[in-house]
């Protein structure tokens, strides 16, 4: 069962949530997951763009009342 680390980046602006995700993903093991919460509107596009570019995996992405919940699996 994959471990999931929560990063609450609500209230910070671009590229804060992405940077917090990247710092967090460095600290977890391959196969584990990070869930980022972001109120930055661009995160819904920017985070998947980065994840796909560097080769990790989007597990889920959801807008809950204006907050993005993005779950990323570390793939390498």
């Amino acid at each position, binding site marked *: 069962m994959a471990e999931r680390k929560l990063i609450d980046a609500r*209230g*910070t*602006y*671009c*590229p*804060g949530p*992405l*940077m917090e995700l*990247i*710092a967090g993903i*460095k600290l977890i093991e391959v196969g584990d997951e990070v869930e980022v919460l972001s109120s930055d509107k661009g995160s819904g596009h920017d985070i998947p763009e*980065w994840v796909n*570019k*560097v*080769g990790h995996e989007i597990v889920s992405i959801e807008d809950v009342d204006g907050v993005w919940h993005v779950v990323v699996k570390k793939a390498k």
Partner: protein
Amino acid sequence: MSTSKISITVVSGSLERLQMAAMVASVGAVSGNEVSVFLSMNSLQYFIKGSDSSAPAEGPFGEVMSGKNVPGFKSLFESAVELGDAKIFPCSMAMDILETEAEDLEPYLSEPLGLTKFLSLAADSQIWTF
């Protein structure tokens, strides 16, 4: 992953330009690009240890932005180095003018560089100027 070289010259001391330069550097670097930043003219003063890092706004956007929870430009430049292996070079000419030595600068900066060397590094890269 497709990568490219990104070279960023920063000469402004205004908040908006420093912020945008830092955003391009950090996002570019963590996306796997080879990022080189050259700090000269009015930008270098903020990277002297202990200096005031509150750059003045150039316009109304900067004034509004300074009251928001935006990651600081120095923090973003440091993230570019630590998370993305960017290189940030202080301009040796600007250091001479400011009478600053390498040990007076923030530790995440690389060695001082002259313009000739930076232009060689910037060959075949995207060039951004702020």
